[in-house]
């Protein structure tokens, strides 16, 4: 029973003690406890993700990025709306004077330099754009697509644990819910591509869905392997399974339990990036070939919802990566001490740690995006089917064998952890598994390097320098 849910029930009770009917109290409390945290935290983070990305891209290209839009415009609007009886010029002058005032000026400078004010400006621009529905489109499909995109990006967050007490719904089949709700994105893209009556959207949508469904399989296999290791599908219990009581709490994290876990983490990360179609895997919206892919016909806020869904998904991948491999919300050191704190303090610290882990994962994703060029579609598909799927299967077997040989299995039964398994494996078994699996992996890598397919003759002619005439 989580404390979060208890306070939700208490609030519902308070609402109904104010004279509201019981069901209305429940819905209101639900909005306060489930909707507000989710949408008030995830929505701005989806927006901030864009600014974050623009800033990182700028830093990687030795630019400054968004740095000129301040809050003067917003202040002008606010003052004009607040004092409707005054002349417009007077209101504007007032706003200018307000911005010159010390603390406000400091805030203005901060928001300008970090680009956060740019986010507000972009949002206002987007919401003021004309809501264009071209005449040839399939109205139902075209209009339904953004809804599904948003749902596919937001619904998986219900099961993501942010602390011991803060989790929307701790489903016993959490990972299945993540996969199922996340699958809506593919439907959204298919609808947008098919319904827009445009060959670019059609091709983009088809490519996108082919790519998403291909990468769904390695992602699913990786999640299955980790769930097997932890003996549960519930994300909250998965975090609990990675608890280590010593000072060095990170020793319990899945990532360092076995070399197979390291490969699984890499596979999961790559496949997840490809599943949400960020560069270098963005063949579906390759702007130099397909205009902008499945959302070519979308404008204004409809397009904005797809963008928001994309950034929410990067955030979700960060959260999932943290839960599956990096111990979830747990601190790398001194987790024992944090758990002994009162619930509120524990929640605050854990949410901060979880957010930090997510941000690191997102940052690496952006780093990859601004470093590598786009892959061709055939390379993308080959990577999914011929590399990642077999790799994930091998790692799944490796983990299963490690569990059987290392007697880890005694601690896990029927999807329930009997106790928090602290030292997961005997030291010798642990060292042996690293040695054997690590050696096997290195051997595989060497073998794979040797047997690469030869470069096509035409491509070799194009890429090698022509022989100089004597």
């Amino acid at each position, binding site marked *: 029973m989580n404390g979060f849910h208890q306070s939700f029930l208490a609030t519902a009770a308070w609402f109904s003690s104010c004279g509201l009917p019981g069901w209305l109290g429940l819905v209101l409390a639900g909005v306060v406890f489930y909707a507000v945290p989710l949408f008030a935290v995830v929505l701005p983070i989806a927006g901030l993700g864009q600014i974050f990305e623009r800033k990182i891209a700028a830093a990687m290209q030795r630019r400054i990025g968004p740095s000129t839009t301040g809050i003067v415009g917003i202040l002008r609007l606010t003052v004009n709306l607040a004092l409707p009886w005054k002349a417009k010029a007077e209101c504007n002058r007032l706003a200018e004077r307000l911005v010159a005032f010390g603390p406000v000026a400091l805030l203005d400078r901060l928001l300008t330099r970090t680009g956060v004010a740019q986010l507000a400006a972009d949002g206002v621009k987007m919401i003021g754009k004309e809501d264009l529905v071209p005449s*040839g489109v399939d109205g139902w499909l075209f209009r339904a697509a953004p809804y599904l995109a948003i749902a596919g990006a937001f619904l998986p967050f219900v099961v993501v644990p942010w602390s011991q007490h803060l989790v929307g719904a701790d489903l016993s089949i959490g990972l299945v819910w993540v996969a199922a709700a996340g699958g809506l994105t593919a439907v959204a893209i298919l609808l947008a591509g098919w319904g827009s009556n445009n060959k670019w959207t059609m091709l983009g949508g088809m490519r996108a869905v082919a790519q998403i469904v291909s990468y769904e399989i390695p992602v699913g296999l990786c999640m299955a392997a980790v769930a097997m290791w932890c003996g549960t599908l519930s994300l909250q219990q998965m975090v609990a399974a990675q608890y280590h009581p010593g000072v060095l709490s990170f020793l319990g994290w899945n990532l360092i339990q076995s070399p197979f876990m390291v490969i699984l983490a890499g596979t999961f990360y790559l496949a997840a990036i490809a599943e949400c179609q960020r560069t270098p895997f963005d063949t579906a919206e390759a702007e130099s070939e397909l*205009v902008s892919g499945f959302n070519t016909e979308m404008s204004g*806020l409809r397009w904005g919802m797809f963008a928001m869904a994309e950034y929410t998904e990067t955030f979700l991948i960060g959260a999932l990566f943290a839960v599956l491999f990096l111990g979830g919300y747990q601190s790398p050191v001194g987790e024992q001490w944090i758990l002994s704190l009162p619930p509120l303090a524990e929640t605050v610290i854990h949410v901060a740690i979880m957010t930090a882990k997510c941000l690191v994962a997102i940052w690496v994703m952006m780093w990859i995006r601004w470093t590598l060029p786009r892959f061709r579609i055939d390379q993308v598909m080959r990577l999914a089917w011929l590399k990642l799927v077999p790799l994930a299967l091998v790692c799944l077997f490796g983990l299963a064998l490690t569990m*059987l040989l290392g007697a880890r299995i005694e601690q896990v039964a029927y999807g329930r952890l009997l106790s928090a398994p602290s030292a997961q494996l005997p030291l010798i078994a642990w060292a042996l598994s690293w040695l054997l699996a690590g050696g096997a992996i290195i051997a595989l890598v060497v073998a794979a390097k040797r047997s690469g397919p030869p470069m096509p003759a035409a491509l070799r002619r194009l890429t090698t320098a022509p022989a100089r005439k004597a």
Partner: protein
Amino acid sequence: MDTGATAVAAAAAALPASASAAQSGPSTFDVVFPLALLLVIAAAVPAGMLIANRVLSGLAHGPDTGNRGKDQPFESGLTSTAGGAGERFGVKFYLVAMLFLVFDIEVAVLYPWLLAFAAGGWSMLVLLLAFLLVLEVGFLYLWRKGALDWDR
């Protein structure tokens, strides 16, 4: 926390019966209610944003003047489009969809297996091996046939 507990107890009568059952561990209500609520909200938030967009853009741009070029499918600025969405496209996409069905079901079968794995031990591993062997033979066949190669 004491006041909260009494409040819960006091309002147990006012709440639906399923809610008060939540006192002893997570009930169906605990699980289904947040999910149902979020489904509704996930639909309401985009709807609200789109309505706001309609209203605000109406204020900003005035009524639609019915621009013909704006209404057409996008084609890099040309008004008459060459080739619509009804064109033929690669059959490879269909092939990928078929492959996905087979292998995603494989993953779906893995989920119940991995929960039972802890109890079964070696025998469960053998079971899985037998199951995957059948599938992976097919996978290897597809590989050799070049079905997984996008260029063919």
